Structures are given as C-alpha cells and as structure tokens.
C-alpha cells in the first residue's frame, strides 16, 4: 500500500512539474521511476506512455470550448508521428536498457537546453500575442511532418510525449498560434502514445501495480499544475527544474554507462 502511495506521489509531482513547464510528465517520470524505485527502463517507459494517454484524455475532457486542438492539423501530422512511434516502440524491444538510458539522458539534456533557451527569450513586439487566434494557415509541411515523425520515434522509444519538439515546430516553423499548437500537441501525444503502448502491452512491459497509481498521480498532477500555474513565479522554478533535469540526465547517463 505504501508503495502505491509513493508511486501516486511521484506521479503527482511529475504531473505538476510537467504542467508548470508545459511539458508532459514523462520527462520527470521515467528517470524518477528508474532511479528512485529501481524499475527496469522498459517498464518505466510503458508506465509513462499510459500516463501520457491519461493526461491527454484528462485535458481533453476539461478543456474549455474553442480552446481545443486543431484536429485537422493534428491528424495530418499524426500520419508521420504514429509511424515514428510504432518504429520506436518496436526498436525499444531490440536495444539494450543501457542504450535506452543513454538516449533518455540525451533527450533530457536537449529538453533542459530548450527550457533554458525559452527562459531567456523575450517576446517580440509591444502587443501581447493572441494565443488562440483563428486566422492562420499552417505552412512548411515537409519540415513539420519530418519533425513529427522524429517526435513519434522519441515517444515510442523513451515514453515522453515529444511536445518539447512539436510545439516549437508548429509555432515557429508552421506558423500555428502558440495556444493552438500546445492544445494540438496535447491531442497528438495521446494518439502517439497509443501507437506504441500496445507494443509495450503485448511485450509484457505494462505492470498494473506500477502503472495505475502512477498514471492517476500524473493525471491529477497535470490538473493541479494548470490551476496553480498563475500563482507561481515560473522563472525561478524553471531555472531550478533545469538544474534538476541536468542532474537526472547525468544520473541516467551514468546508469547507462555503468550498466
């Protein structure tokens, strides 16, 4: 029972941190379950994928009308993302846990770099940007589809949503407003995770005693995070969490290198 509560608390913290930083909880969840609970990385990736689906479903269930995803854009990009996720899910069963840990560490470092870049970037112009403006036309589809495929591969392989790649690409490359890009990414990560979770399910990498408390914790944490977001000074928190990500990345790298 204590273990279930500890997993619930871990999921809750990962969900809150993920929501505060605009990331899925997986980037915190996989290292936490691997390093603190000593679980095999494939089990933690499978757990993270179920948590990603739960969070995507939860946000879809409570999102206000008109603030939802651009389903049309999501499905077109998902054609490439789902292929990547399928390939990533299959590849995860063939490569060693050590290599998976090293790859995860690299993605953690990239995420920390992205967060650092985001924290230093000043908004352009005097007028605040409309997050959900409707008059846009997505462009640069080849670049968007390529990045979506890569994000799917990373998701299937490592159990993270890949929003840290998709949102900046939709926003900066394809010209989608930031609010819609974020909502669309959230819609997509559920489908992407589903494209690889069945492979983990069939391989026996989904363990209910780990998955259920953790996914419930992440789901609740994501909702709590959305509510406390306006009350938190995000700049200091972001810097602290970049430090935490780097620390976890180093631990995962060492775990991979030392076996």
């Amino acid at each position: 029972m204590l273990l279930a509560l500890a997993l619930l608390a871990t999921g809750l913290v990962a969900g809150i941190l993920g929501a505060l930083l605009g990331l899925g909880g997986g980037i915190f969840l996989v290292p936490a379950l691997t390093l603190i609970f000593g679980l095999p990385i494939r089990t933690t990736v499978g757990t993270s994928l179920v948590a990603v689906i739960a969070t995507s479903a939860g946000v879809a269930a409570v999102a206000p009308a008109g603030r939802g995803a651009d389903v049309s854009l999501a499905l077109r990009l998902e054609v490439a993302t789902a292929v990547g996720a399928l390939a990533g899910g299959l590849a995860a069963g063939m490569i060693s846990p050590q290599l998976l840990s090293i790859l995860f560490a690299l993605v953690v470092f990239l995420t920390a770099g992205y967060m650092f870049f985001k924290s230093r970037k000043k908004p352009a112009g005097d007028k605040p940007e409309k997050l959900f403006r409707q008059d846009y036309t997505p462009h640069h589809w080849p670049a968007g589809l390529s990045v979506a495929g890569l994000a799917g591969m990373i998701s299937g392989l490592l159990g993270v949503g890949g929003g840290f790649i998709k949102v900046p690409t939709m926003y900066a490359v394809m010209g989608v407003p930031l609010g819609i890009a974020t909502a669309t990414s959230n819609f997509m990560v559920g489908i992407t995770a589903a494209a690889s979770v069945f492979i983990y399910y069939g391989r026996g990498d989904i363990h209910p005693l780990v998955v259920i408390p953790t996914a419930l914790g992440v789901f609740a944490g994501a909702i709590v995070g959305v509510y406390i977001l306006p009350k938190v000074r995000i700049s200091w928190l972001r810097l602290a969490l970049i430090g935490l990500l780097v620390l976890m990345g180093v631990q995962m790298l060492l775990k991979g290198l030392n076996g």
Partner: protein
Amino acid sequence: MRTSVRRNAEPTPAMVQALDLEQHMRRVSQVVSAAAVVLMVAGLLGTVMSGAALALPGGSVMALHDLLRLPIHPRALAAMSGGILMLALLPVLRVLLALGIYARQRVLIDALAALVVLIELLISMRAGGG
C-alpha cells in the same frame, strides 16, 4: 496546404463543425476515461484488499486475447488490465470519431488522414498481440 477549420474569426460553418467535433471528443473522453479510472481503481483496491504481498514491478497485464476469457482469470487483474486497455483505446476512439465526422462532412483530405492514422493504430495493436 492549410487546415480546413480555423481560418476566419467569423463563426463559419467549418468552425461550427470543428466545435461540434470538439464537443463529441470531450464527451467520449469524459465517459471512457471515467470508466477506465473506475475499473483500474477497483482492480487495484481488490488486489490490495486480497492481502497479497505486493512487490514492484509486480505481474504484467493480461494478454489481449486472454481478456476475452475472463472467468478463468483473477477478477482484480482483469479489471486493472481492462481499465488500462480502455484508456489505451481512447485515442483510437477519438480518431474513429474524427474519421466519421470528417467523412460525413465530406472533408476528404482530413477523412483520409484519420483513416491512415487509424490503420497505423490497428497495425500497432496487431503488433502488440491484439
């Protein structure tokens, strides 16, 4: 190429249809995720109450084909596996819903994209032993 539903600030028929799709998806997400959570929590409580010694990571989920032969398996494990499976199937349902609505609206490019994604998800289920 552009998406078909988010073009103008005016409430065009396309935007109304997009909101309609959004509402349907919200309803499906609410019903299926609530049912999945109830099943998972019931199964987890059943396992904890049974007094079995719990150690991580514990047993794996039931295989997809075994879920169809429920009576021969422990009910708590079946409930937990069924809840997880239901949650995993939710994105498939959302894509199916989008396919149906886009096909009804004759938005062929989006219906085709939804169909391709649905086929990819079915291939994934097949690869997972479904």
